[in-house]
């Protein structure tokens, strides 16, 4: 077991865990931040996406030992960011969510997309969101919400 000092949503945290523990389980089990979801465990579905130093990151495959001093932002904190707020507002206005299980990961990936590409094309959206799976098939509403958030950010 090792002790790690993390910065999560701007707050300092300290956890003592096995170095190989994926960040996802540190967030969910040790820090009790359950907004980030476990989907597949192999980075295939995107439900576990958080931001590490601004990069959308699959927390289910990244051991906590490889985080270092990079700040982490989760779905619980993304609303404090203007882009994150706009995306969450669009998610509500477009009524995107069906079962909702994948949506925290979807939102984290969208925020990463819009921060680098504020006016994404359909191709940009397809490529950036291609790794986020929604079993309810809300993709059409996700696309509309991304465009609505993009407009909001004008």
């Amino acid at each position, binding site marked *: 077991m090792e002790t790690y000092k993390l910065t999560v949503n701007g707050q300092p945290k300290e956890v003592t865990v*096995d*170095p*190989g*523990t*994926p960040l996802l389980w540190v967030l969910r089990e040790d820090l009790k931040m359950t907004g980030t979801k476990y989907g597949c465990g*192999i*980075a*295939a579905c995107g439900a576990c*996406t958080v931001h590490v130093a601004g*990069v*959308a*990151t*699959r927390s*289910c*495959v*990244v*051991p906590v030992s*490889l985080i270092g001093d990079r700040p982490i932002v989760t779905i619980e904190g993304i609303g404090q960011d203007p882009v994150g707020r706009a995306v969450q507002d669009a998610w509500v206005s477009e009524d995107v969510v069906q079962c909702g299980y994948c949506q925290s990961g979807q939102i984290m*990936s*969208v925020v*990463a*997309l819009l*921060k*680098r*590409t504020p006016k994404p094309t359909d191709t*940009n959206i397809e*490529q*950036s*969101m*291609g*790794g*986020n799976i929604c079993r309810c098939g809300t993709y059409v509403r996700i696309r509309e919400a991304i465009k609505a958030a993009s407009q909001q950010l004008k």
Partner: protein
Amino acid sequence: MVCSHRAMLRVFFVTLVACAGWSATPPGASGQSVSRKQTATPATREAGLVAWQQVYSVLTHPRCINCHTATNYPQQGDDRHRHLFNVVRGAGDKGVPGLNCATCHQSANAESTGVPGAHNWHLAPLSMKWQDLNDKILSSADVCRSLTNRSKNHNLDGPGLLKHHQVEPLVHWAFQPGRSRDGAARSLPPLTHDEFVAATRTWVEGGMPCPQNP
């Protein structure tokens, strides 16, 4: 299996170097009476060609060539299948926002989850593609010409290429690729890193000769 394959390749390499040295010896000359300097020049180019084939055997191993594609995506595994999860190259060869290489690949191998990693994980640029659009590996001559074309290789000369093979973290990763998520060790290139660097040095010192296309 891997070890025995590498051992066989080493024997093959040594045999080829020996043959190249033997064939470069002038007729009638005694190996004892001819100075090293006299035989060095013709032998070096031959040795360089032999060494190139060793370099090529590493460059075309899946640990290397999976990220030297001609397409919009990297490959994975020893069968060189298209990278899962709809990963695409992106404008900077590092994926796209929201789905970058760094979305999964960190600065080191993640042994507990089986995701490979090294500093600055990325695809080689398209100018350094060593496959065609059908994922067929280019010939030894074509890869050699590409590697030595300074308009394609970030303007690296021989010493620059040697240094790249010596110090680039992604090159080092190929020789320490870690384990996949099922716990199995990833296969290794046919040479060790030291042997790869030595072969590169011999090739560079031999004038970076490229074989002719068949």
